[in-house]
């Protein structure tokens, strides 16, 4: 009986391999995708131990639990397998070591069980996931008992048979579950980390958040059925352990809109797998009725399909789910590729969004307003328009310039630039919409038209860098226009103003009085990793700065991204109301913003709320106070 445990491990490995291969047939339904296997494999330990654990560690219990149970499981299984070697299998001390590893696994299994029993947290899926601690406990305690018996030299007792049987029950169960149960995340997750569709996100630089350009000449645009997704995207979905961190972070979910990123990923899996187990996590809030077809590889989106269009259009593309996903799944990529098919192939965009896209196509501007009216916000103040001469700074005004409220911010910014004697100019009537909104709504064609036009315009002018107060414009210009061969140095106004203050070109005085909390714009924080400059700038103004519970890269969206305001999918609450309630919890009298969309969304919250002020407005007040 000495070799019973190693044998069990070999059988388990064989079973897991079979199950993985069966599952791999499903991944192969997806479209081909280039994967750097060698580099991915080499990078795996770092991706797992650093990147994954950086996310996992945000939940201290889960992190400890996973380290113990996964570490124990791997160690115990490996050590048990090595006992097949005669010198080791014959060593009672070795078996003691094996027992120790199983013991650790058992402790981890208890932690897993304790998290799910007696009451499972809402964000964790139940169903098949509830069996996981049982299998782990069986394997761990069976293995522990068997190894202890062997360590004490008991080599053929009925007790040992019973112990090995228990371990086999658990271990084979775990191996079987590699195809469609909880343990799928381990194997698929590891493969996903190797073959990740965005390997650059592990490079440690700025986040890799630019959408991939769509080939508009492709026979089918966007994703209609799961088979239209790249194979490694399908693989990535299998990495999901249904921990629900994404749903906890999702603003649309919080607002009761019919979106749950976890459910969405599972729906994409189920849409392609006939015998996928029933989903047992939180539903889409206020889920719309759909007549889910039974045959696999059917179209994914539609009232007669698995996912209702309202779910798709609820997303604000804030990337909170991506930021929180310990398995490095790219939900937003999936959503945008689904939207691309809806918009480009079916023209099935929400009504108000269709009007906006029409405006963008006809007038190159969201509201269909004249491009020349973009500078009207200046209200008579001189605004240099770029000409032949090279300027230090091209000020990209963005869509906010058309908004009455945001005009205040831009006027403050322009005033500050003048005070600091910055050599700047605007494009005037030559500035078009960046296409950000069109792109997030899946209208890649309009986006590409606008992007090409803007790139051509910018190529006609000479400037050292672009400054913008609009993080959406910043992201498009800095990251997404690269696909058109255009590389600009794009600086967010908060970073630029900080620079001016640090150079002594602006001298803020103390504002005093109110405390302030800073709301990170998604497209600046999560999309571009810039969370420090705005805070450093605020700290120069003599205000008492407090943080909301969700801030920095883990901040919550204002509800204004991804076309959500024009898609306007009803929920129970409004996202900006939720966010302002979070701000109110800090007691701050001012919510500092750094994005025209956040300004509009948060200031649109009714009732007695904190003042919503852009950092440029606060800086101007402070500079004027300091005079």
């Amino acid at each position: 009986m000495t070799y019973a445990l190693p044998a069990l491990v070999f059988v388990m490995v064989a079973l897991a391999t079979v199950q993985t291969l069966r599952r791999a047939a499903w991944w192969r339904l997806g479209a081909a995708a280039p994967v750097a296997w060698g580099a991915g494999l080499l990078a795996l330990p770092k991706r797992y131990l650093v990147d994954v654990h950086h996310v996992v560690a945000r939940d201290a219990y889960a992190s400890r639990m996973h380290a113990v149970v996964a570490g124990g499981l791997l160690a115990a299984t490996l050590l048990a397998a090595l006992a097949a070697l005669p010198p080791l299998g014959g060593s009672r001390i070795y078996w003691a070591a094996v027992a120790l590893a199983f013991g650790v696994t058992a402790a981890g299994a208890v932690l897993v069980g304790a998290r799910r029993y007696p009451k499972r947290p809402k964000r964790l899926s139940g169903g098949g996931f509830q069996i996981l601690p049982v299998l782990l406990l069986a394997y761990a305690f069976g293995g522990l008992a068997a190894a202890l018996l062997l360590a004490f030299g008991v080599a053929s007792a009925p007790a040992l048979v019973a112990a090995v049987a228990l371990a086999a029950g658990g271990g084979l169960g775990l191996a079987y579950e590699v195809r469609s149960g909880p343990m799928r995340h381990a194997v698929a997750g590891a493969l996903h980390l190797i073959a990740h569709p965005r390997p650059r996100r592990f490079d440690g630089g700025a986040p890799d958040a630019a959408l991939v350009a769509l080939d508009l000449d492709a026979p089918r645009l966007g994703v209609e059925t799961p088979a239209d997704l790249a194979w490694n995207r399908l693989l990535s979905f299998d990495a999901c352990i249904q921990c629900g961190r994404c749903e906890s972070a999702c603003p649309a979910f919080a607002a009761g809109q019919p979106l749950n990123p976890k459910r969405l990923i599972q729906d994409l899996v189920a849409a392609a797998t006939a015998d996928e187990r029933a989903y047992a996590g939180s539903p889409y809030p206020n889920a719309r009725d759909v007549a889910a077809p039974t045959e696999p590889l059917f179209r994914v989106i539609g009232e007669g399909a698995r996912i209702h269009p309202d779910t798709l259009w609820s997303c604000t593309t804030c990337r909170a789910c991506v930021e929180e996903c310990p398995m490095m799944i790219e939900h937003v990529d999936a959503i945008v590729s689904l939207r691309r098919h809806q918009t480009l192939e079916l023209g099935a965009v929400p009504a108000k969004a269709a009007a906006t896209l029409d405006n963008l196509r006809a007038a190159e501007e969201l509201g269909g307003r004249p491009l020349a009216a973009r500078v009207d916000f200046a209200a008579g103040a001189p605004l240099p328009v770029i000409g032949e001469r090279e300027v230090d700074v091209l000020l990209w005004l963005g869509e906010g310039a058309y908004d009455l409220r945001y005009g205040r911010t831009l006027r403050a910014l322009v005033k500050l630039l003048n005070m600091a004697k910055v050599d700047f100019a605007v494009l005037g009537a030559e500035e078009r919409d960046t296409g950000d909104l069109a792109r997030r709504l899946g209208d890649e064609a309009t986006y590409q038209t606008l992007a090409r036009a803007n790139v051509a315009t910018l190529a006609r002018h000479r400037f050292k860098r672009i400054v913008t107060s609009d993080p959406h414009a910043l992201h498009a210009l800095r990251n997404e226009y690269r696909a058109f061969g255009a590389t600009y140095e794009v600086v967010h106004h908060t970073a630029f103003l900080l620079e001016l203050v640090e150079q002594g070109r602006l001298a803020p005085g103390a504002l005093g009085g109110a405390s302030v909390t800073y709301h990170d714009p998604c497209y600046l924080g999560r999309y571009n990793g810039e969370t420090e400059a705005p805070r450093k700038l605020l700290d120069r103004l003599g205000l008492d700065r407090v943080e909301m519970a969700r801030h920095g890269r883990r901040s919550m969206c204002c509800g204004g991204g991804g076309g959500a305001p024009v898609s306007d999918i009803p929920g129970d609450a409004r996202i900006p109301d939720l966010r302002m309630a979070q701000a109110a919890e800090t007691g701050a009298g001012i919510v500092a913003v750094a994005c025209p969309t956040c300004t509009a969304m948060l200031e649109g919250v009714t009732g007695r709320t904190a003042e919503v002020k852009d950092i440029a407005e606060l800086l101007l007040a402070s500079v004027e106070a300091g005079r």
Partner: protein
Amino acid sequence: MIANADALLKPLTIKGLTIRNRVMSTSHAPGYGQDGKPQERYQLYHAEKAKGGIGLTMFGGSSSVALDSPAAPWNQISVADDSVVPFFQQFADRVHAHGAKLMIQLTHMGRRTKYDTENWFPTLSASAMREPASRTIPKEMEQEDIDRVVRDFAAAARRCKEGGLDGCEVSAAHGHLIDQFWSPGVNRRTDKYGGSLENRMRFGIEVLEAMRAEVGDDYVIGIRMSGDEMIADGLSHEDCLTIASEYARRGLVDFLNILGGQARDHIAHAISLPNMSFPVAPFLFLPSAVKREVDVAVFHAQRVTDLATAARAVSEGHVDMVAMTRAHIADPHLVKKLSEGRADDIRQCVGAGYCIDRIYVGGDALCIQNAATGREATMPHVIAKADVRRKVVVVGAGPAGLEAARVAAERGHSVVLFEKEKLAGGQIGIAAKAGWREALSGVTRWLVGQVTKLGVDLRFGTAATEEAILAERPDVVIVATGGLPSRGPAKGAAEHAVTTWDVLTGAVEPTGSVLLYDEMGQHNAASTAELLAKRGCLVELATHDRMVGEELGATNQPVHLRELYKLGVIMTPNMELIEIYPEGNRLVAALRNTMTDAEEERVVDRVIVEHGTLPVDALFFGLKGGSVNQGVLDQAAIVRGEPQPYDLAKGYALYRVGDAVAGRNIHAAIYDALRLCKDL
């Protein structure tokens, strides 16, 4: 949030002139001219609007271009000679410094003025038809007069251009010379200037052509005209459209400043300057109709008192520029507040007509609720913080007390405001109960909004006592306890008369026949009479004066008279109430004719009197002895604009403001408070 407010903040380019937004102030005559020139007071008044963000401010309503159109009435501007040019230059610099544009109105008044005010030349017109408003009979113009006035207009336009003004408009509204020629009711000529509309338009065309020839095609010239004179023998809407399109088609005008009505008599005048009895923007349909016909910019003013209406007028395309002239008198920083997201801080014009009524009796334009307007040299629109923070206790939340609390709080002081009633407003709240006077409550609304926002410790429903005031350990106590109505000296009045207050507050609800006796000639009695008549009383309004509402101005008195006539109120002037005594369950009121001494009696169910108010001053006298200044206001310091010279280290200073000193009006109450508290 004001819907479509962004439409107001779009620039407008007329020829080469870019106006930064769509909000303007039309030319008017605030009575600030000195020696026929716009001097410091006049300039600062408009510069304040420029500072406050206005796009275009036009001054000099009815500025005269000729010697026989005198500038003397209403302290107006004369553009009849070159001596005005340096003043224009200084004026333009002052306004341009704040980014606004400046234009003037030029006119020849024709018959709409008096011959006996300046140069004693006879008035002129197309025909020798008497004007009811000015009561003059003009001389019919000879061809030489026409040619001379045309030259005068051209020379005046040149002076505007030389003075750096951004443009000018000619007035062809309110019955001035050009529209006297247009109007078939005035123009009875048989030469080429009379008869057909084409002929009647000729004089104006000659004027504008001569101006164009003088200043060139790129100088902005507009015309102010009616869109419908609304009288049988006047210009119809179609006539006005024809004139507007013809002048625009000929390239004579760059903008049309359209209004409704005319002003040849009292009621027409009151309608053309609508007060609070009218809905907002009552004539917006007229510029809208003109705008459909022409390609030049269209301006319009007439009771656009709020930004929501203004934004609608522009965003819906009725007008290109919306004029908020009286709205800027109430708050010259209106546009700035809008663009800074502080629309709630705008002091909205209530349409009391106080500003304009004053100028028609030769006074200067002052705002009923903003005592700084027209006094920019001495009174701040934005109150500066004080160096030392004081404790200020204000008693009474009528206009005087609210303004005192507001200004003191703006100064940074810690302010407690006691008010025995549950609601603020004092007498304003009573006046606002009378029919169309309701909008008066806007004065209180803004003040309460401001003191609330400024964190004044508001103790409504709390009667102040000396102990409660002194318990606050105040540095300054301001008594603004207002007044109570007097019943007057008539025998038996104390026992048998009730007051207009009793009626308006609902304390008594008269029925049957009522004698309302008025010694004030103000709104109080007239509006009470209207209220009673509407409730079914048979009302006689008797007054000591020569007519009912004698103290009321040009935009208000005709409206009262119209209502009183419509309601069948009997108006009895030149009477004095001498005695009231009961007879059975009715009252006998004895009246004496002030001219003949003949006595008459009325047997009525109620006698109501209006004798103004007497101060409520017990608290003041109770606190007077303990104060460092014995309750005395140093008037010389007030006039010099200096702080009161009392040493607050030794105790509290005591002042009283508003009707608590002597019964006056809302403006007096607010001015008392502002000028005292701005230096506290």
